[in-house]
């Protein structure tokens, strides 16, 4: 416990700012969550995920065979904000991209392939939400692969629109808008 407290203190002192840090994710948290790949983890085919979601717009994907597999893989959800109806990430979310980049450059993770899944809430039309979530997930992937120098062979991106809500009883809840980062296993 003492060591953990000091670890947190170290992050806080390295950044040199205030109490808001308790709310922020760190690359250490990401690495710790994403490197726990079980030996029996299922192989996921990204193309089949795309097929399933395209055939089920407005109906949800949580129960479908390939989307169900994702729950067994190490993952982390983050909040990245975009300009309205745009793929431009707002400056307030730049740090989150930076945290992801730091984690993906870490030796613990840099040999794995990651799937970026974009989610919206259920405001607006399902078709539009699916399209926007794919474009936003792609924007994140491109940013990581270019500006943040993550090898593009280690990244894939898909959108799932409003079809896999975190809070299914409140489909319009803001919490449903999120970006998932999922470890797909050792990069080929």
């Amino acid at each position: 416990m003492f060591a953990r407290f000091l670890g947190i203190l170290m992050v806080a002192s390295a950044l040199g700012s205030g109490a808001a840090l308790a709310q922020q994710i760190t690359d250490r948290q990401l690495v710790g969550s994403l490197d726990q790949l079980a030996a029996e983890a299922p192989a996921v085919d990204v193309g089949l995920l795309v097929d399933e979601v395209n055939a089920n717009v407005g109906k949800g994907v949580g129960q479908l065979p390939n989307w169900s597999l994702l729950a067994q893989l190490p993952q982390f959800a983050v909040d990245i904000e975009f300009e309205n109806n745009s793929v431009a990430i707002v400056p307030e979310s730049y740090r989150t991209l930076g945290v992801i980049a730091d984690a993906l450059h870490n030796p613990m993770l840099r040999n794995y392939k990651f799937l970026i899944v974009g989610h919206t809430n259920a405001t607006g039309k399902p078709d539009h939400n699916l399209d926007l979530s794919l474009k936003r997930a792609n924007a994140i992937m491109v940013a990581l692969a270019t500006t943040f120098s993550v090898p593009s062979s280690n990244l894939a991106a898909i959108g799932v629109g409003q079809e896999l809500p975190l809070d299914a009883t409140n489909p319009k809840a803001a919490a449903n808008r999120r970006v998932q980062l999922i470890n797909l296993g050792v990069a080929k």
Partner: protein
Amino acid sequence: MSNRPRFLGALTLLLLVTGYTAASAQTISYADAMTVLARDCGADVKKFCKDLNLGNNEIRNCLEGNQGEVSPQCTATLAAVTASIERRLAAQAAVFKVCAGNAKQHCKGVVGEVHILQCLIKTERIDSEKCNQAITDAGWR
């Protein structure tokens, strides 16, 4: 892996007790680079680079292209974080080459980058200055 938090904790304590800061020799993380960039350039991004994105260096190119108009603080911050990130990436690419001798000497039989790095972090006191600096600059302590 289990020893790492304790090691970092001890290092923190040392830094706190001695008041030591190695600011001049440090590279910064992408996370911290983005924090200062958003702080110092956020307003300029919204003014001059609306609807451009982080990808393909669009934001950096836009800010540099509007250098006469963006705030001097933003221009300075952008240059500083770009240089620091480049140093960090170079260090990350070089760590295992720079530290190969130390790894061979102090981490005999240790296999795989993750385990070798963990070993080198533990053997810091007897590793070369260059190797230690590379690990620090890589942001992997």
